[in-house]
């Protein structure tokens, strides 16, 4: 069978195909409504739902809930009739499958293992994702856009969230599911997997690019300056910029809220930065210490 058909019709992967379809559909619907509302507001009219009246719960709401429940039930039943849940060979600690993949919703994190050590990719970053998500309502002080779809009133919030959700979370999952084969090497979906394939890709550390051993004192200092400089500078530079251009915005944010927001933001942006460093410049580590590597 064509490897592409094979990989997208693997029972567990059908869920991912369904996810791609559903997520694309709802993403389009959300932005469509957001732009529609923006247009209405530009014309000085009220957004969708503004003139809504109260209606009885019974029956309009109960009816639609029942219909949705039936549709979902029928859909899942059809899915369950057509596709059987996989049950592989009995667990065998002596035979390691290649690649050994985590459950699909964690494949974004597993994909990060290419770019970060496990303590970052598997522990620190997931923790920061959860903390960051919970923090959103407390760091987003823009009162607009509450209760309706809009883009123009909350551009930065929506762009940041969309980047994290669609690119860093969902796209990496899709890559992990469909584009990673034996040895976690990149395979196009139409390529046959080859367990013998070895890719020799010499990587280096950041300081070795300028000829300093990354495990020497000099390399350690350079790494420390780059990593800490990124974190500290990444927080101070925008501060200076806002101070000059939007002082009232900084005033509203306050120091603590600004620091938390900026820390979460630059931590998120460190992921694509490290990816580019690794993929384009073949940099493995930026900072090597006796205890951990970044």
């Amino acid at each position, binding site marked *: 069978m064509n490897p592409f058909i094979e990989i997208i019709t693997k029972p567990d992967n059908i869920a991912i195909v*369904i*996810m791609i379809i559903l*997520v694309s559909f*709802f993403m389009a*619907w*959300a932005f469509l*409504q957001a732009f529609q509302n923006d247009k209405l507001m530009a014309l000085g*009219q*009220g*957004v*969708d*739902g*503004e*003139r*809504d009246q*109260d209606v*009885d*719960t*019974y029956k309009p*709401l*109960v009816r*639609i809930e029942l219909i*949705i429940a039936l549709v*979902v039930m029928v859909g899942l*039943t059809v*899915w*369950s009739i057509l*596709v*059987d849940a996989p*049950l*592989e*060979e*009995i*667990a*065998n*600690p002596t*035979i390691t499958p290649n690649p*050994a*993949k*985590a*459950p*699909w919703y*964690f494949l974004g994190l*597993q994909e990060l293992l290419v770019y970060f050590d*496990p*303590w970052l990719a*598997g*522990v*620190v970053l997931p923790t920061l994702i*959860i903390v960051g998500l919970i923090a*959103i*309502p407390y760091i987003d002080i823009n*009162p607009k*856009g*509450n*209760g*309706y*779809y*809009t883009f123009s009133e909350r551009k930065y919030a929506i762009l940041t969230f969309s980047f994290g959700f669609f690119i860093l979370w969902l796209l990496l999952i899709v890559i992990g599911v469909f584009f990673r084969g034996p040895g976690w090497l990149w395979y196009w979906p139409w390529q046959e997997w080859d367990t013998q394939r070895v890719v020799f890709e010499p990587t280096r550390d950041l300081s070795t690019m300028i000829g300093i051993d990354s495990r020497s004192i000099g390399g350690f200092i350079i790494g420390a300056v780059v990593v800490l400089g990124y974190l500290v500078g990444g927080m101070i530079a925008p501060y200076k910029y806002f101070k000059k251009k939007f002082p009232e915005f900084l005033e509203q944010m306050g120091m603590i809220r600004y620091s938390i927001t900026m820390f979460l933001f630059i931590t998120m942006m460190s992921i694509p930065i490290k990816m580019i460093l690794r993929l384009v410049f073949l940099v493995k580590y930026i900072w090597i210490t006796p205890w*951990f590597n970044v």
Partner: protein
Amino acid sequence: MNEMFDKVKKNLIWKSVFRRDYRNTVRDRAAAIFGNVFLHIHPVKVRESAVKLRYTWGMGGITFFAFIILTITGIVLMFYYHPTVSHAYEDMKDFEFQVPYGVISRNLHRWAAHFMVIVVMIHMFRVFMTGSYKAPRQFNWGVGVILLVLTFLLSFTGYLLPWDQLGFWAITVGTNMGAATPLLGYQGPFSEFLHITPYNDVRFALLGGATVGGNALLRSYIWHCVAIPLVSIILMAVHFWRVRKDGGISRPQITDKETTL
């Protein structure tokens, strides 16, 4: 025909169950909600936006519905399952080949689980895009994030239970991350300061051992079937309660747009 309905409706038993006739009056429409233990999760009246599919997409409700399907099919599976290394895999084979509707029950459980993970993420996206986490709903967003994580963990703990290669290695890969926890995992930074070894770190606590084995299977089973559902149900109660206490489904604020009304 009507006579027959009358007879059914006018006897003692019917009246003891339904208490009152439904006459499509304001009072009766309200009573249909508050007189019903399941429906009274809803207010008697809601804003139109709560009824519009284009606004909520019904995603929160669908997530909850998936949870109900998973609970029911999960109970069916539990009747036939022993969480032991010697039985787990054979129980799954038995369930598929010997038990009536076994295959479809297991399929439903599996696909509803994937489906729940997908719709809960879309629900979060919808709530974000409508700005519904903003005041006064900040706290409920946080509860929702925890519920999202619990959904992942519910699915994750269920992965190991069939005791097949897929689950075994997925859990091995997943829990190996625990070993990398700073301070508390034996491969994590700074763990040597706390004298952490493979036999006393986070991963050991997760698995009940240094490798995925019988204890890990039992732990997965209890997390999956008892502990996490229990916490999830409590948090769902809080989540739904707060939806109402924070003013129902979010809607455009009228106060700052008086001109249009």
